[in-house]
């Protein structure tokens, strides 16, 4: 059995740019914004960084390929910069790489930074990604909303839920996130919405409407990690540490077998189970204080609650309607507004989720601050329901 990552690495500092339609900023500007805040928070100089991991997805319209764009933008002292790309889970992957580097002892202090400049693509949504020369010759030119919308069709068929009830439940997911995002100055969308607005919104992909889809925005987020003893040497107290970092990647089973019913994420079930084991959590509903879930679409968040064992199978729609995941519910979810209100600058999202956990665990979340936050779970997803990369990370106060 691996020893796991629990409490071996702590967060030294974090930063996050304002997310939104950042017409004023280049990806380099966004990187600097997140980096400056993180470095200031950590209280270190660039020479103290040993290595960095850089997460960005759409190189063609963003920074270009490789690690050089980040090294130049931040004028790093010729240290290693590795570009990480794992679809929308890239941010969490950059964190994992930096954390592992520190845990191994190969680095003392490492930086992970993610950025994406979606508003320079010109699309009102994610552009279609290239997937090699073979797949496009048989696979439909599918878009993300329709891939995720299929969860709804399969979930309804499996659990015998009528269309209207499911639509109301997923609308409530968005209503909750907007209520939270309205309180967050760094969020892109800061207006509260109603269930009625969700129901009346233009249809994007049956049954998802406009308010069931996350925003398209620009943003960057950064984290600096080190070993706890170094953090203390640097004068840090009240440390937030990593309890688990797990990633599960589809091997094609979902699309090759008739066993998967299309209503859940196979990888999320595997990654969360392993993460709970790594973190030593046996009763997630009691031990997880809050979650940041990859809510690219409202239905994604709803079914994920079952995958994370935070709802009973076939009952997440009921929990959502009962407010279990609201700010004042049993396990608040997307207290920062989530992808729904931050939008989803692909390479940055996983680190942005960690940023909110960090603030909450340190009691620095201002108006959004929850009481008694001890353990937070981050769920970051790349790909689509039938073929994906699922990252589940758990963070908490060091030693607890």
């Amino acid at each position, binding site marked *: 059995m691996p020893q796991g990552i629990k409490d071996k690495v702590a967060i030294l500092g974090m930063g996050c740019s304002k997310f939104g339609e950042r017409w004023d900023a280049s990806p380099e500007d966004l990187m600097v914004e997140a980096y400056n805040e993180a470095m200031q928070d950590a209280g270190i100089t660039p020479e103290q960084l040993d290595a960095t991991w850089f997460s960005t997805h759409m190189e063609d319209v963003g920074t270009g390929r490789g690690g050089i764009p980040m090294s130049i933008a931040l004028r790093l002292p010729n240290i290693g910069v590795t570009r990480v790309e794992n679809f929308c889970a890239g941010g969490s992957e950059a964190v994992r790489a930096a954390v592992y580097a520190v845990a191994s002892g190969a680095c003392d202090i490492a930086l992970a930074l993610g950025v994406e400049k979606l508003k320079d693509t*010109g*699309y009102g*949504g994610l*552009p*279609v990604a290239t997937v090699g*020369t*073979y797949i*496009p*010759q*048989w*696979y*439909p*030119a*599918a*878009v993300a*909303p*329709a*891939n995720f*919308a*299929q*969860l*709804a*069709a*399969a979930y*309804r*068929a499996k659990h015998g839920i009528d269309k209207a009830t499911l639509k109301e439940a997923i609308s409530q997911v968005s209503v909750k996130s907007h209520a939270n995002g309205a309180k967050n100055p760094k969020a892109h969308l800061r207006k509260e919405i109603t269930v009625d607005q969700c129901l009346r919104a*233009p*249809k*994007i*992909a*049956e049954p*998802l409407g406009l308010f069931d889809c996350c925003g398209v925005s620009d943003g960057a987020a950064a984290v600096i990690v080190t070993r706890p003893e170094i953090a203390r040497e640097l004068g840090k107290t009240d440390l937030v540490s990593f309890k688990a970092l797990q990633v599960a990647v589809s*091997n*094609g*089973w979902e*699309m*090759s*077998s*008739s066993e998967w*019913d*299309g*209503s859940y994420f196979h990888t999320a079930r595997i990654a969360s189970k392993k993460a709970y084991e790594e973190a030593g959590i046996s009763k997630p509903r009691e031990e997880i204080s809050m979650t940041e879930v990859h809510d690219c679409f409202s239905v994604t968040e709803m079914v994920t609650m079952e995958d994370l064992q935070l709802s009973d199978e076939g009952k997440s729609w009921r929990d959502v309607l009962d407010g279990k995941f609201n700010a004042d519910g049993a396990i608040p979810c997307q207290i920062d507004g989530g992808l729904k209100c931050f939008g989803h600058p692909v390479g940055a999202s996983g680190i942005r989720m960690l940023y909110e956990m960090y603030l909450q665990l340190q009691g620095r979340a201002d108006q959004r601050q929850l009481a008694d936050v001890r353990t937070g779970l981050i769920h970051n997803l790349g790909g689509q329901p*039938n073929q994906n990369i699922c990252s589940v990370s758990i963070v908490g106060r060091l030693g607890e």
Partner: protein
Amino acid sequence: MTIGITGFGAYVPRLRLNRSAVTEANAWFAPGLKGKGKGQRSMTNWDEDAITLAVAAARNALPASVARDQFARLVLASDSLPFAERLNAGVVAAVLRLPEAIYANDLCGAQSAAVSAVSQLVNAAKAGEAGLLVAASNRRTRAASPAELDYGDGAAALSFGSDKVLAEVLATSALTADFVDRFRLQGEDIDYYWEERWVRDEGIGVMGPKAVSQALNDACVSPDAIDHFIFPTVFRGADAQLAKKCGIAAEAVADNLAATVGDTGSAHALLMLCSVLEQASPGQTILLCQFGSGISCALLKVTEAIADFKPVKSLAEQIAAGKEENSYTRYLAYKGQLKLERGMRGEQDKKTALSTSWRHHDALLGFVGGRCTVSGDVHFPPSRISYTPGAPSQDTQEPYPLADKKGRILSWSAEYLSSYMAPPHQYGQVDFEGGGRLLMEFTDVSPGDIDSGGEVEMVFRVKDVDELRGYKRYFWKATPTSYPASENSNGEQV
């Protein structure tokens, strides 16, 4: 040895353009067309062309019991082949999984091409080679022209051989003449044609009787013995006139399907033949003729075996199952005659790696997956390593064709985001009977036509068009085996 037709099948696209929708839309410009505004004509969906039509007809002509490795020849006759260079028949052969050693060729240039090819296939059959003749047409016409209303899109296929012959070929005849009633230069896509009366009187009226009597004389059959006279023409009454001149009974003149399908060009004689064969009785005599750069004829005699053959889907059934289309702009757009705003998602580069296509041509054209001989699991695309939880077997997959398998919809959505010619774009995961799963596009569907659990079947269609380089690629799509209720062209339930 009896030589002749051993199987037949036709294909008419599901969409039927309401002719009055066309005449109404064009009334400001061409009020004289109003008289042609009756009935329907068949029209291709955006993802159909002469190749996909040909495949659909051939699949209807070849029930699963027919061994495909028997065929040694394939002829694809068409006036509207998508590729000027690339063997169109080669695509059809690959899709039908015909033997690699087949002689396949494209035949074009005259409307009578398909009928003239009958003698070629008869000669091959005499030499012991079974063959397949497919004719397909997806013609373009100018907006507000009579041709736009007269024509239809469709295909027909006939198999030839000496085993279980349904209709014996008694004789064939040809008359070749550079009588230019119509023409189209290489690179142009719309025909230019000359006056109807001249074509009818100087062309059909003069050449028809010569070619007909030659075929009848060769077989020693008297004209009054003809039970079915097939002569496609858009000229009203020209078929009956020719029959009369040849001494053929007026009752023998076959319905040219003008009211329901329209004239399907190169395919039309064979299409009408399929319609006749679906109703013909043993012993009846059929005279098949088509005009174009001369005239070609084939004289057939129906055998007792006709009772034992049914196309996979009959033409009568297809004609009855049409879906009326009332949008003239949809018709124009599908024919490539109306440039619609496709948005930024329509700018996507659709370059095809030809080397990749070739490496996977069995999967892409033949729709062949892989079945693991150890676990029985079916994979598409086929792979080196099979996935069975805990037991990945390597190099155990054998070819496993999926085209004729029915499927059930596991999950689906209908989206309005992507650039798609028939919005909403509908796709979802399909589970195949006997194993296998694929995320597939649904075609020939409107909102409300599909849901989880619905049964689908496979059709071969255009997957993508690379307009930058002028290339088309094809793949299989799912279409419902039954539709929930009748609906109008806007997909609204009526």
